[in-house]
């Protein structure tokens, strides 16, 4: 009862081997691959490029925060209930700056967090790679590479052979 394959997962010995393997596969025009490492490895970012829209999201979030803060304060002070407070003008904009800043940061921060996780497609407690018991090492000292089945070049046999040539520690075929 084997369902559709998810991809082929291979563990490598260390960051060096992993990066080398990734480069190899890249040179063979594999596009849909992903590596799993216990800490971020910069080199991978060049090998597996992906556009990162997080900064844009954060900027928009901050902007919304700023606008909210300004409109809220101005509306309340001038239109909602204009009150003479200690002879100060209704539109005491210098006093509004603080909250303007704070709300900007607040909204930006929240959108960073939300944005980061949603872009990372999290939460995802269940995932094919978790099928492999050995994958637990990915968050400790294991360096994994997975060529996914959605890759046009993917072919269960050939791809596995290609990977095996790169000298992995071990290889797994994963189903959806």
């Amino acid at each position, binding site marked *: 009862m*084997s369902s559709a394959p998810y991809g082929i997962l291979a563990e490598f*010995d260390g960051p060096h081997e992993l990066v080398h393997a990734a480069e190899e596969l890249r040179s063979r025009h594999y596009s849909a691959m992903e590596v799993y490492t216990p800490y971020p490895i910069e080199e991978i970012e060049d090998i597996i490029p992906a556009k990162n829209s997080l900064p844009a999201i954060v900027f928009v979030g901050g902007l919304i925060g700023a606008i909210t803060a300004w409109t809220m304060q101005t509306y309340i002070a001038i239109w909602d*209930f204009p*009150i003479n407070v200690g002879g100060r003008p209704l539109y005491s904009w210098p006093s509004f700056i603080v909250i303007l800043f704070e709300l900007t940061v607040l909204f930006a921060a929240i959108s960073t967090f939300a944005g980061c996780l949603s872009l990372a497609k999290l*939460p*995802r*407690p*269940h995932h094919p790679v*978790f*099928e*492999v*018991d050995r*994958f*637990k090492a990915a968050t400790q000292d294991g360096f994994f590479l997975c060529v996914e089945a959605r890759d046009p070049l993917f072919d269960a046999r050939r791809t596995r052979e290609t990977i*095996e040539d790169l*000298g*992995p*520690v*071990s*290889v*797994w*075929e*994963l*189903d959806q």
Partner: protein
Amino acid sequence: MVICSLVRIDPRVVQMAQIFSGAANTIARFTLWGFAAAVGLAMWAGAMIVRSPYETRQEEPREQPVPFSHEHHVGGLGIDCRYCHTTVETSSFANLPATKICMNCHSQMWAASPALEPVRESYRTGRSIAWTRVYDLPDFVYFNHSVHVNKGIGCSECHGRVDKMPLTWQAVSLEMQWCLDCHRHPEERVRPQSEVFNMAYVHPRNQAALGRRLVHEYGIQSLTSCSNCHR
């Protein structure tokens, strides 16, 4: 040196490493959105409750020791408000009729009606009737009937169509924002002084113009300073 074990792994052979079942992903997302929704809902509900008639006690007919019907006395018999609420034009407090005023008529009519026994009893014993308050402002709010009545704010603006109330109820919310609506735009509510005690009065189509005229005529100010009501 590396031991390269090329094993074809059959998922059925590998013991399950998954901590969560496939459904977990959906559940997780649902929980997140659900939580956000719940918070929003709770806040909305809170706001609704605070403004609800339950909280404001709006439109809740109050039990009275004597089932007094404004509908009958005002609507039916057409008795003027001031006959009972004697001080409405001169004092902050509109006053409730003294037992004597009730007895002016009820010593003759309905003189034996059991419903009116409390009135007669009060008159006999000299003990007052304890009426249930219908319009009850908080103790830190100071409202003055005389100035409103004298400046063309009709009874029905706040008390509603009393002449249609068998048992009296609170016709408006009496929330601070309700007070302020009128204090900010008196021209929308003011009516000619002649019409103040007219229950059936409806604001004419030219209220905007009329209102502006009357506001000027009566020298009505839009009073929104705190100490106008809170002292």
